[in-house]
């Protein structure tokens, strides 16, 4: 016993000594195990994406437990609206296309077949530094028959890179550059940080004379850009990037200067002119035309963002509404285009691959679950999801409390912030505003934009008329209503998140309704009489006066650069129908 114990001790000592000699620094081992743990965490969310015909394919990553996943536009383009996604568990799941961003080369898809999907968390790509350790995951050369993702490691080689548009639409603004191997088939797959958080979606490489294989220079669409687009992609639309309506070039000293500006754009109306130096955009400093393009390229069409410019040594801070980068026809054409841009490998037929065989032999018929989640409509990648999100927003608003079954006119009374009282009646086809000295009557004509009363309000009365109309008629009877997605509301002093936005058109005007996604309440509406005019903005706040009513306690009306009026709502009554 004693002897064997001694022997054991000696053996242990020897073993320790040998190991100490052979093993590297503890820090190295620790880094290795951290790396392995991060890969282990991340790999389950990685997708191998195949079109139903089994020809071609790419990669993707699941980003929510209910199965929403990100990939490249150019990966799903040959798939149509139905694709199959292999995961690290070895199973293939059906998926449907949800949203498309052809300019940013991003697609959002939705997987079916599990209640809870393993998913990756989105990191903060603005925090990525050159030299940070990263790894790419995906299905390069469509190697994995068992869908186990291939992992390639590297470092961040550059941040805030700008890649010129390739072909007609594709633009990689503000992307991350990595030396991790990214090959054909990796497209759409995630670039992870050392914690296994998604930093970007790999999509583009610098290829030249060496053929379509990794040359140590790959670009990932930053996840922070995709976060801006997540809401609009969930709308099932073909979404667009933004333009300022001005061309920014460099002056002799390399600064970003407005070279040309359209007098019809919002930035012009906010005071931006040719020759002004752009110094900030979206909260980021701008010091060159490239840094401006990077700051602009990460926003969807329709957002309103802060911008700063300098003229005669003085700094001006404005909010600008961003118009679309491409025409509607241009986008639709891009979707229909047969030619796809970057790496698009075709797998060699391999009879030994059972799983890919089953994929290939899969009947091109679309599975029922996918058919049930797809609705075709022009301008939309999948109208089903637009209707779904529109209903969610509507239900959220209505859950606050209904305005009552009565379709009678609404009567609002209270004090004006500027002094005096008001009485406002909003009816089915008209409205009236009584102030101490005057009364303004408004009737809905064929074109609501023709009578923007009261004067200098930008059309407060037609705007409030549309507010009531949406509440009373609902999105189906209002006119044409679609879910835009999410957007910030920088004009509000009460809300700094992303709001759900419904866009309604009725009698020649377009109205954007902003809802608080958590509370369901209407935060603001903007009524645009036409594309080249400022909207009338109405901000609703101080909700909850009466048993969580959907009627706010305060309305702030704004037009252009000025507040028009602030109205407290102390009395709210729905008159009986017919009584007016």
């Amino acid at each position: 016993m004693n002897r064997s114990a001694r022997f054991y001790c000696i053996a242990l000592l020897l073993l320790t000594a040998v190991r100490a000699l052979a093993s590297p620094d503890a820090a190295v081992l620790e880094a290795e195990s951290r790396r392995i743990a991060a890969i282990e965490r991340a790999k389950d969310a990685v997708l191998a994406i195949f079109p139903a015909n089994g020809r071609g394919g790419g990669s993707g990553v699941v980003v929510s437990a209910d199965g929403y996943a990100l990939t490249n536009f150019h990966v799903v383009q040959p798939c149509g609206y139905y694709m199959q996604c292999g995961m690290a568990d070895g199973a293939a799941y059906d998926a449907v296309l949800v949203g498309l961003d052809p300019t940013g080369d991003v697609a959002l898809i939705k997987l079916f077949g599990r209640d809870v999907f393993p998913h990756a968390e989105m990191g903060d790509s603005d925090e990525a530094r050159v030299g940070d350790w990263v790894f790419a995951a995906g299905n390069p050369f469509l190697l994995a028959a068992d869908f186990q993702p291939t992992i390639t490691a590297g470092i961040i080689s550059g941040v805030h890179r700008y890649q010129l548009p390739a072909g007609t639409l594709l633009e990689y603004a503000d992307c991350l550059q990595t030396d991790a191997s990214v090959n054909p088939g990796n497209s759409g797959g995630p670039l992870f940080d050392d914690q296994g958080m998604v930093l970007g979606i790999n999509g583009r490489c610098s290829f030249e004379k060496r053929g379509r294989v990794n040359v140590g220079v790959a670009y990932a669409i930053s996840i922070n850009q995709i976060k801006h687009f997540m809401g609009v992609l969930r709308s099932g639309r073909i979404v667009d990037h933004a333009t300022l309506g001005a061309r920014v070039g460099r002056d002799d000293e390399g600064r970003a200067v407005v070279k040309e500006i359209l007098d019809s754009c919002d930035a012009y109306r906010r005071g931006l002119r040719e020759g002004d130096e752009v110094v900030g955009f979206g909260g980021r400093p701008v010091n060159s035309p490239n840094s401006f393009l990077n700051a602009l390229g990460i926003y969807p069409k329709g957002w309103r963002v802060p911008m700063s410019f300098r003229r005669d040594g003085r700094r001006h801070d404005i909010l600008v509404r961003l118009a679309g980068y491409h025409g509607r026809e241009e986008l639709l054409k891009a979707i229909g285009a047969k030619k796809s841009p970057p790496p698009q490998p075709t797998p060699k037929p391999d009879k030994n691959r059972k799983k890919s065989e089953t994929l290939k032999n899969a009947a091109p018929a679309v599975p029922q679950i996918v058919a049930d989640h797809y609705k075709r409509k022009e301008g939309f990648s999948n109208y089903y999801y637009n209707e779904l999100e529109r209903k969610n927003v509507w239900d959220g608003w209505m859950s606050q409390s209904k305005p009552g079954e009565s379709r009678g006119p609404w009567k609002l009374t209270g004090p004006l912030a500027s002094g005096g009282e008001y009485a406002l009646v909003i009816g089915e086809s008209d409205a009236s505003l009584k102030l101490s000295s005057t009364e303004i009557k408004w009737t809905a004509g064929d074109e609501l934009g023709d009578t923007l009363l009261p004067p200098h309000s930008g059309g407060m009365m037609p705007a409030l008329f549309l507010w009531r109309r949406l509440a009373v008629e609902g999105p189906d009877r209002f006119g044409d209503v679609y879910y835009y997605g999410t957007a910030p509301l920088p004009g509000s002093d009460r809300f700094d998140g992303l709001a759900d936005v419904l866009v309604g058109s009725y009698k020649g005007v377009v109205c954007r309704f902003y809802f608080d996604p958590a509370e369901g309440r209407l935060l603001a509406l903007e009524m645009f009489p036409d594309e080249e005019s400022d909207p009338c903005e109405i901000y609703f706040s101080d909700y909850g006066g009466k048993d969580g009513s959907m009627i706010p306690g305060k309305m702030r009306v704004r037009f252009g650069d000025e507040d028009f009026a602030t109205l407290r709502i102390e009395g709210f009554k729905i008159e009986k129908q017919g009584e007016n």
Partner: protein
Amino acid sequence: MLAFSLFAAPALAADTFEQTHPKVVKIYGAGGFSGMESYQSGIVISPDGYILTVFSYVLDTDYVTVGLSDGRELDARLIGADPRLEVAVLKIEAEGLPCFDLSKAVKLTAGSRVLAFSNLFGVALGDEPVSMQKGTVSIVTKLAARRGVFETPYRGPVYVIDAITNNPGAAGGALVDTDGCLAGILGKELHNSLNHTWLNYALPVEEIRKSVEEIEEGKFVAERDPEEARKPQRSLDPAALGIVLVPDVLERTPPYVDRVLPSSPAEKAGLQPDDLIILVGDRLIQSRRELVEEMEFVDYADPIELTVIRGRNLLKFTLQSTAGRDPTRGTQP
């Protein structure tokens, strides 16, 4: 353990990046058509604006500009170049620049972890930092190991890197160790004509330092290529042996014997038409051009050993030119 520091502490690479990238510059000059990029990289080697880069067509213009990390773009003057090493020194008017000190350059061995800094693909513009890639030195070897494979006048030792560092625009960039100490400058793109791969390599600073310093001081005299120097004053060629090769019609025409001249050294040795020459001495020959080039290293009066394939047999012959006795049959050196 320093060698492992890049992996052990990823933050270290980020620190190295911050202190190193300002010493690497973007160079803009001639080019811009048919796959010839009009940009390359360079490194600052003195605070007052001496820039080391590779000697290439990009510098073949009076209008070369250097882009600094702070976004400034300054006109550059070509001070001089060593065409044998393919390095050039530029000068810009500036002061207090962050720079590398060539005299403090480190020497690397196979297995050293390295970081490469360059303006590959011209992706960085204005004040955007150049790209950083990581890799390992695979081997330290001479480019001359396979003559005729790489088209480059440089035959000295290079650091071969396992990462794809030598991309368009990367030439002239910095190769540093994980502490940011300079070890070499990235060479031009080199295409291997045998297997159509591309070499990723850097010229060790110690190989180019002397030339660079002499160029800086304005007293550089291009040396004769030592490889060229090995060639005899008067070389041998196939005609001198009475060998008529098949016409050189392909990029890599196989060196088949077409005819053997009567009563020539070749005929006397027993060479026949359709013999395929595969070895000169112990050097493998893969094309007609390579054979002629290899013969240039043999003195016209020396014997030469040729190995040929005839049918299924490998045959060895020793030939000696009679040109020594009849100088008119020889070729000019």
